[in-house]
């Protein structure tokens, strides 16, 4: 698995500017480009790295740093992280200065409300794309459904759910 640094930079810079509603909305595109377009890794590898990154603290897009590191070492991690978080931060900085002027503008509310269903669709697509391979066997699908149900119905810390999933996997139930 390796990837050129400019390719990584361009990909994540684009995703940075398209991440309306947060990082999870660009997850399906990230997987599509990594796996289908560039062939930098398999879907299973992508999902394993995504799962791993979810077990790390901090903002929920740390999978970007991990992908950069896997594909191009330390420089890959730095380039991917800077490309994913740099452009959107620049936009934030610029928008902060204009915020006073457009905060109460009617179009601002329309745009924000209009993006809600798009974000919901994108995050659902991300869930489906990741689950399609990560929950490929009956027992793993059971783990995914149980984690989803517990995350909705209880206030259990996500780390517990990830830990329980890993423990269930470790028990080897239902594998090959």
């Amino acid at each position, binding site marked *: 698995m390796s990837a050129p640094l400019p390719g990584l930079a361009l990909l994540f810079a684009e995703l940075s500017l398209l991440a309306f509603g947060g990082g999870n909305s660009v997850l399906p595109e990230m997987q599509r480009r990594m796996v289908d377009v560039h062939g930098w890794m398999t879907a299973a590898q992508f999902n394993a790295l995504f799962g791993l990154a979810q*077990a790390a603290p901090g903002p929920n897009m740390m999978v970007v740093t991990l992908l950069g590191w896997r594909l191009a070492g330390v420089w890959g991690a730095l380039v991917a992280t800077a490309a994913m978080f740099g452009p959107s931060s620049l936009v934030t*900085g610029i928008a902060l200065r204009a915020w006073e002027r457009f905060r109460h503008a009617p179009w601002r509310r329309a745009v924000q409300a209009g993006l809600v269903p798009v974000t919901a669709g994108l995050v659902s697509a991300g869930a489906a794309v990741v689950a399609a391979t990560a929950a490929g066997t009956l027992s793993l699908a059971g783990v*995914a459904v149980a984690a989803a149900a517990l995350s909705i119905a209880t206030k259990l810390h996500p*780390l517990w759910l*990830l830990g329980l999933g890993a423990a269930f996997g470790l028990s080897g139930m239902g594998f090959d």
Partner: protein
Amino acid sequence: MDQTPPRLPPEPAGVAPTVGALFRGFLALGLMGFGGVLPLARRMLVEERRWLGAAEFADLLGLCQFLPGGNVINLSVAVGLRFRGVPGAAAALAGLLAAPSVVVVVLGAVYDRFAEDPAVRHAFAGLAAAAAGLLIGLAAKLVWPLRRQPVPAGLAVLCFLAIAVFRVPLLPALLVLAPFSVLLRHWGRA
């Protein structure tokens, strides 16, 4: 649900944090948050360090949710910029990302080292399935409020089909669906 009597939000301290304080504040935040840093960000900024008032926090968060990028990422940039300009924004962002970056690479190295071991492979398969489950839970929470609104719900379904089923590239999909959704919203109101 919350039975505690309403209490006045703490006043902001009125002292602008230094660049170093911004870095340290967001460094601590990056180390603490698992699967959602936002509630912790509010506690740190409004209640503990009192850099922002409650209303100011809500206002900045509104901006950050409106823009592309992670909410807390954008929030760190906005807070840093507000108090210490570009160096402050860079310090806050670097602080937020420093610890999670190191942790995630260490986890990746452990995974690489032991990926051949069947037990480790199984554990990671279970972990990935649980992570997918958490994402399903998040998607459900975003979709549920749309259930009685046929137009936004239809748009969400359309977006889902385009991306997950037909694997349309995100850029053209967004260029069509986002303006369409905003215009529908606009006309629906008028």
